[in-house]
């Protein structure tokens, strides 16, 4: 009889509740998930292999595509690894602009992530609002970088262009606008009874379990450990910028969502601070032209704090115009496979999409 007690269902990649392009094979007993197996690979584009056959600069057009909602961390981490191998010093203004771009990207990603979470509990107003606000951030990106989603703006040695003159004013205006919207998101989403019932106590994890399983970023901070690569291993201009590391101790779905909500506020604070402290000078170090760009032999692992967790680029150069190998460590590589498989066990089927969305799993960086 045991054979008939469990049902296997395939959840995704076409399911509206799935968080991106991957599938789950869930073994259910009634409504409870007893075993989950993640099936990635729907988005595998062999970026690491492609990068071996493109020049250092051509790869800048390739790497942002690894993570769609938060593309700038890729360019930044890749450029930082190259700069470290070459011993290039980025001008201060370049670093400040990089920080602003990275924070705008985090802001956009968190707004999108929160919206996705709202969609997962059936609160469709929130995604409409957050994506509407995200559009203003995309407008800022367009005015600064020339691209809306993929910016290809961070460059080994700095950033490609300086800011337009009226851009800081516009950025501050957008920040004011988004900050004014944050309380309404709070009262819409976090004060809702449905959110309370669905997210509170959902799949709680402890700090030691999270560290053991390689959970990073906002999900780890939601368990109470105060870690943030922006502060622990400062890159760009974060050493000189003023921000708090948000931690909550509950480690459940609500804490994971709240950390993201608070981090939106912190990103706004960082952007304002960076615009205020913006130094003058060049934005890019003097580097050889892109077609004659050579990187001496060496290797470096550069990591940045993305909206989803630790993003790392391990770049190996053997000298010459092409990288020898680039290994991309995406946060979802651990969150999306092993951690999720464990967290989904003994949860209800209805909560599967919510847990996945709460972890902010981004399948493109599992597949690459």
């Amino acid at each position: 009889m045991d054979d008939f007690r469990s049902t296997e269902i395939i959840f995704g990649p076409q399911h509206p509740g799935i968080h991106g392009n991957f599938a789950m094979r869930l073994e259910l007993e009634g409504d409870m998930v007893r075993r989950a197996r993640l099936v990635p690979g729907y988005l595998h584009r062999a970026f690491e292999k492609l990068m071996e056959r493109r020049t250092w600069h051509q790869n800048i057009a390739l790497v942002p595509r690894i993570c769609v909602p938060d593309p700038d961390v890729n360019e930044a981490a890749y450029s930082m690894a190259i700069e470290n191998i070459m011993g290039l010093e980025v001008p201060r203004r370049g670093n400040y602009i990089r920080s602003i771009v990275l924070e705008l990207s985090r802001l956009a990603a968190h707004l999108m992530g929160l919206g996705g979470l709202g969609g997962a509990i059936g609160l469709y107003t929130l995604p409409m609002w957050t994506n509407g606000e995200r559009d203003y951030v995309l407008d800022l990106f367009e005015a600064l970088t020339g691209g809306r989603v993929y910016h290809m703006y961070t460059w080994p040695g700095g950033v490609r262009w300086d800011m337009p003159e009226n851009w800081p004013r516009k950025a501050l205006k957008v920040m004011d606008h988004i900050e004014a919207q944050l309380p309404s998101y709070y009262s819409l989403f976090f004060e809702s009874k449905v959110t309370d019932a669905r997210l509170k106590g959902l799949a709680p994890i402890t700090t030691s379990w999270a560290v053991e399983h390689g959970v990073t970023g906002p999900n780890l901070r939601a368990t109470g450990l105060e870690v943030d690569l922006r502060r622990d291993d400062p890159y760009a201009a974060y050493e000189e910028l003023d921000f708090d590391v948000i931690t909550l101790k509950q480690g459940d779905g609500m804490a994971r969502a709240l950390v993201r909500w608070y981090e939106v506020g912190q990103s706004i604070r960082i952007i304002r601070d960076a615009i205020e402290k913006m130094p003058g000078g060049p934005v890019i170090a003097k580097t050889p032209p892109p077609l004659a760009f050579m990187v001496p032999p060496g290797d470096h692992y550069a990591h940045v704090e993305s909206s989803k967790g630790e993003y790392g680029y391990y770049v190996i150069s053997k000298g010459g115009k092409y990288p020898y190998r680039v290994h991309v460590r995406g946060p979802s590589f651990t969150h999306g496979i092993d951690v999720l498989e464990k967290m989904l066990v003994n949860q209800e089927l209805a909560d599967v999409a919510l847990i996945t969305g709460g972890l902010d799993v981004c399948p493109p960086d599992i597949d690459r």
Partner: protein
Amino acid sequence: MSPGHRQVIMMTDFVKKTIRPFRALRFLARKPHTIISPHEQHNDIEGEPLPTERYRGIHINDWETCISCGLCARICPCDAIEMVDVEGEQKKRPEVSYGRCCFCGFCEDVCPRDSMHLTSNYVMIDKNSETFTFLPENDLKEFQKEYIVETSQLRYNDKDVKKAEKEPSAKKGGKGKKKK
């Protein structure tokens, strides 16, 4: 708990449950984020029209300054640019395939004579896929004018539509505007 206290709690509960939902009514007055393209113009937060000057769209290339060095073809990460022979021209000219182009703008960055530019035009409409591979020129060529729609041209109101329907010979394209 004193009866007075309970009453206060009931009152706040009443306010929370009954009055607050009405605060949502103010969103009725809020304008939607979506715009009715192309009848409405997409503006940024300060009301300035988008796309901005920096937007990376369809290429233009000044043939007088272009020295046909081929650097744009070499840097292109997508292999979208090819140097081709042109009838009546001694030099080879870059030909861009928009099926491949990722609009990174590296060709513009690497151009030693500053002849290659990406305009903020991005609307190109045709059924024939071959139209999307062409030689960018400084002035958009006659045949391109048919397919590349100047983004400003898209911003017409209903009156203009009716007018255009009445006069089918209305000018379709516009002159490619320079970025810098």
